[in-house]
């Protein structure tokens, strides 16, 4: 019981993953800035931002539904923190695990988007409503290729449990090469999930100010931003666990360090990707996802189905 509480609240749960999320945001911002020939923020910037926002007043618009408006960030945050508990980080075991947890992890990663939708919708601002509609429209475009490419990796490992998938690939590192296409597809889809360029359409500031977050301020905004940061590391950690779980074979200390480096490398790749593109329009984004990402994900699925017949 005490053990579980420690897992949930301290490590690898809430405290650790919040810290890691803020560090990852710093890495992302710093790399983004350096690639743009800027200096970038100092290392404590993300922490300072977070603490400052926590100290600010919460303003809830009169017309907003205060309960839904306040609950949305908490939903988003708790959903993403939960996912991290199921990801094996340095041992062959995750904090919690059951057969089918990969489905739950993907499901929980969808919750923040829905929470942003609800928060934006109930804040009744026009910009927020437009942003939240865009959030959900976008969701239907990137979820399908993301699910397909991650689940096709699970298919080859013949398990629905993250722990077993990670074990399977760490024992057969060469098999990871088969999933490179799926990894590429899910990286692009993750950009959509994290609402980063070229898919930062729901919060396109030159069009709809801050999208669904327009009316948020103070603690609630801090929680929302933390949820997005954690979503980023959890997404990256999920990819590492599914596509490159090499750290597991290296023992506790070294394995943990390698895992952190791998996650940050995925984050760095994400910032590189968002540096070199312009924002697409929502119709172009949906076209792109269904025309290119989904067929590629299907191809990955086909490859893995054939491989499964040949290899296993």
């Amino acid at each position: 019981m005490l053990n579980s509480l420690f897992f949930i609240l301290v490590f690898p749960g809430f405290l650790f993953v919040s810290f890691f999320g803020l560090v990852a945001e710093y890495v992302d911002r710093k790399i983004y800035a350096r690639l743009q020939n800027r200096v970038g923020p100092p290392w404590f910037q993300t922490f300072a931002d977070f603490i400052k926002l926590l100290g600010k007043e919460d303003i809830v618009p009169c017309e907003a539904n205060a309960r839904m408006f306040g609950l949305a960030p908490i939903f988003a945050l708790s959903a993403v923190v939960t996912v991290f508990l199921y990801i094996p980080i340095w041992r062959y075991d995750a904090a919690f695990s059951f057969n089918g947890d990969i489905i739950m992890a993907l499901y929980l990663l969808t919750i923040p988007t829905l929470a942003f939708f609800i928060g934006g919708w109930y804040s009744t601002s026009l910009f927020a409503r437009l942003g939240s509609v865009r959030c959900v429209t976008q969701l239907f475009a990137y979820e399908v290729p993301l699910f397909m490419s991650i689940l096709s990796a699970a298919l080859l490992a013949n398990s629905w449990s993250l722990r077993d998938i990670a074990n399977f690939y760490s024992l057969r590192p060469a098999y990871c090469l088969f999933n490179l296409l799926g990894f590429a597809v899910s990286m692009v889809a993750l950009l959509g999930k994290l609402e980063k360029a070229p898919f930062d359409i729901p919060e396109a500031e030159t069009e709809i100010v801050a999208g669904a977050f327009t009316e948020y301020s103070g603690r609630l905004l801090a929680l929302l931003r933390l949820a997005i940061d954690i979503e980023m590391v959890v997404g990256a950690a999920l990819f590492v666990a599914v596509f490159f779980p090499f750290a597991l074979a290296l023992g506790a200390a070294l394995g943990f360090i390698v895992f952190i480096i791998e996650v940050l490398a995925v984050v760095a790749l994400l910032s590189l990707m968002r540096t070199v593109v312009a924002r697409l329009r929502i119709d172009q984004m949906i076209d792109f996802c269904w025309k290119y990402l989904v067929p590629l994900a299907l191809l990955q699925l086909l490859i893995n189905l054939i491989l499964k017949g040949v290899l296993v």
Partner: protein
Amino acid sequence: MHNSDKFNIPLGPQHPALKEPEGFSVALKGEKIMGMDIRLGYNHRGIEKACEERTYIQDLYLIERVCGICSHSHSTCFVQAVEEIAGVQVPKRALYIRTLIAELERVHSHLLWLGVAGHEIGFDTLLMYTWRDREIVMDILALLTGNRVNYGINTIGGVRRDISPKQIEEVYKGIKTLEERTRYYIEVATQETTIIKRLSGVGVLSREDALRLDAVGPTARASGVNRDVRRDDPYAAYAEIKFNVITDDHNDVYGRTVVRVKELMESYAIVKQCLKDLPEGPITVKVPRKIPAGEATSRYEAPRGEDLHYVKSNGTEKPERVKVRAPTLANIQAVKHMLKDRYLADMPIVIAAIDPCFSCTDRLVYLSHCEPPKGVKQSQKRDCFASLAMTSRFKNAKVMSWEALRTYSIEWHRVHGIDFSELNNTFRKRLEKR
């Protein structure tokens, strides 16, 4: 927000897409723009009226502040009109220096635009890169004139600062770096997939519409209108300089981008020619403070298009009337046309594509007879005049003298709770004591 319902969203007067206060009310159906209303006037500063109360030399500095980006354009345009009335022959060296600064200004304006355009389509990397390189030309301008923005180089009858051979070396060096970088930006802006996706086919303005709606500058040239004041009605040293007028027939935002980046290369060539052919001689002639009675109109190809100044003098040292028509006023009419049936996401870039400068544009026009031209439907009446002047709001408008305007303003502020009369009295007493 039911799908079949139209709803209005306010873009401005305060909005992240706009760098200056400006009201766009957009009627949306889903993501589609069904109609929009433009409201100018948030930046009205009464510069024309203020010019009438100051001497020509003072006006020069005031006019320079019409625009923060194309300040040299406005001051040159004004100075040309005054010189024409006074019948002054400006020395050649001064004309070349004016041309040089004008082209450097075009470079800084177009680089700035490229960055803003990048930002509007969510490509902040382009913004950071172009603005970094814009610093080079800003430094050159500061070196030549002493200022980064409002150069203050013009004076009636010439320019105020000469250029030394050492400075010429520096300019050559800077231009060389800029040429290299610009070649790279041309490549990026015309080949990067996401940029093309966002620019191509967006904000279409056909040649006929460009002519009908009186578009000017790069906006018109991107629609295949071959029009450039520098060549058609040469001023300063342009008659002696060889350059190409860039046109493009894409008719869309992509075309406008191509025109601007290619114009950058032309500007570098003009700058180099100016430096090479810089004639020797004085840089200014003496002009009397009192300008003889007369009137003149002056045209100037600002980075954003044709700038037009009208000056009427009455023989004193103050002008009787100054009229400024900034290029944005000519182009803003076309924006509404360009946005027909487009998406909300296109709006920032389409507005940005005319390179709007709203503070330059805001003039108050009082139409005593607000009748639409023949053949225009009653329902379109408001559209006809909405962006020109908010006539309906000023039913009781009248022309005021300067003194009456001052009294009116003091009274207006007193009614709204701001009263300076006591402060004025204190100051008056203090002055009397001296």
